[in-house]
């Protein structure tokens, strides 16, 4: 009798546990049908889902994205060798031959980070910023932001970034783009690439004090040595200019 009672209690408790949360739980992550896996990534994604480690695997995909963008494309290496070095290469120091580089998988890889962890704001801003400002693909950048907005519709950083993209795409008005980017720069989620872009735009329109403030912020807060060195160099140049 005791055994039957125990079994009944166990079943009732187990069902109660499921019942209690069945109606209240809704996953905040994209459904599996939305996950498009770039080459050689299926096993990683399976682990991400099976061990509840979406954030960790999104980090891994983000590192892969940066490595992909930091690896020179073969045809562009040859091209770059024949060209003069720009004073502020691609507004993104350690990414080789970015201007005109194809990086055909970039958008898919950037989207994949968000498919795994749609809350990875920095990755969305980095992906959209790189696509628009470094690769000259504002439409692809917009698609990345629109996907991110689907899961974070109230994220003002995405909305500001979309506005910046709009100005960049239609009028090429650097002042408007810089103004739209300005509020994002103070946020911890802002990628250093975007800060550098904003500093560059401010410099271009003659707003040297704003550019200097952004470079000073990059030099003080970034852990990326390439960006820090460039920021220090730009700061020195701006100081020199101000002294003249």
């Amino acid at each position, binding site marked *: 009798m005791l055994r039957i009672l125990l079994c009944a209690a166990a079943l009732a408790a187990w069902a109660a546990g499921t019942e209690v949360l069945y109606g209240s739980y809704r996953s905040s992550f994209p459904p599996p049908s939305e996950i498009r896996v770039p080459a050689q990534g299926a096993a990683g994604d399976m682990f991400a889902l099976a061990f509840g480690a979406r954030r960790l695997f999104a980090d891994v995909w*983000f590192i892969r994205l940066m490595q992909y963008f930091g690896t020179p494309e073969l045809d562009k290496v040859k091209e770059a060798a024949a060209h003069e070095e720009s004073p502020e290469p691609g507004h993104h120091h350690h990414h080789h031959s970015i201007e005109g580089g194809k990086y055909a998988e970039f958008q898919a890889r950037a989207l994949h980070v968000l498919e795994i962890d749609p809350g990875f704001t920095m990755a969305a801003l980095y992906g959209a910023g790189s696509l628009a400002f470094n690769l000259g693909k504002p439409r692809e950048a917009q698609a990345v932001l629109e996907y991110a907005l689907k899961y974070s519709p109230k994220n003002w950083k995405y909305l500001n970034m979309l506005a910046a993209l709009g100005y960049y795409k239609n009028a090429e008005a650097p002042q408007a783009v810089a103004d739209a980017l300005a509020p994002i720069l103070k946020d911890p989620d802002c990628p250093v690439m975007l800060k550098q872009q904003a500093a560059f735009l401010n410099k271009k329109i003659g707003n040297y004090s704003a550019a200097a403030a952004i470079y000073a912020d990059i030099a003080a807060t970034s*852990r990326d040595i390439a960006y820090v060195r460039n920021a220090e160099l730009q700061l020195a140049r701006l100081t020199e200019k101000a002294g003249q």
Partner: protein
Amino acid sequence: MKKLLAAALVVAENSFRESVRNKFFTLFAVFAFTAIYASVLAGVMAVDQEARVLGDFGLALMELTALAYALFNASSVLLKEAETKTIYLVFSRPVPRWAYLSGKLAGALLTTAFMLAVMGFMHLALLKLRGFGIPQGYAWALTGSFMKLAVITSFAFFVALFSTSAVSTLVISGVLWTAGHFIAETRFLAEKGSGLGAVALKAAIWLIPNFQLFNARDAAGAACSLPPVAFLSAVVWVAAAYFAALGLLERKEF
């Protein structure tokens, strides 16, 4: 009643002490420390996202390490006590089976909590060393990990009482752990599907605990906090596995 509760506490205390003295525990602690240190390398690769990567890697690794130990402990502790005849000594005294099982389970959960606390301390020290503060929602992430581990440990106790070996307990519990993280996807497929497959998936949803509910370390910002329903579910699932295990233990003859 007080005497019986005291007996359960003594069993829990002994179980905890045994675990802490166990060489495997030390091995896991060393492993966790080494692996967390290795995460520094991954952090360096992430440049400006080092803090996030270090935080995520450490939390995931802590959970997996604690899971490995918790499952190993739960799957072998009752078998070992039966093999070494220690269980006969316990039951020769006025210790009821419910008190013995609850003591063993409490000891295992205490060990898990202790492991998470030690590894959490090591992880935070590592983050501090790298110049970072405590990640947002850290306490919630650890609490969620503990709740997942509590459910799976109690389930492993239940499985250990009918499975033929510790390995089969580990495999069955491992499958449940994986399936528990797939509930959202299973639900999506069940809602989209039709026929027998959809019915099977719906049945699976009712049988498998939803570990994603406790997965605060995968959530961001304000979503990190665990809802009250998560605590309630964890309690009833642990209780259900305990009652089921007790039902099996009552049937055993020692």
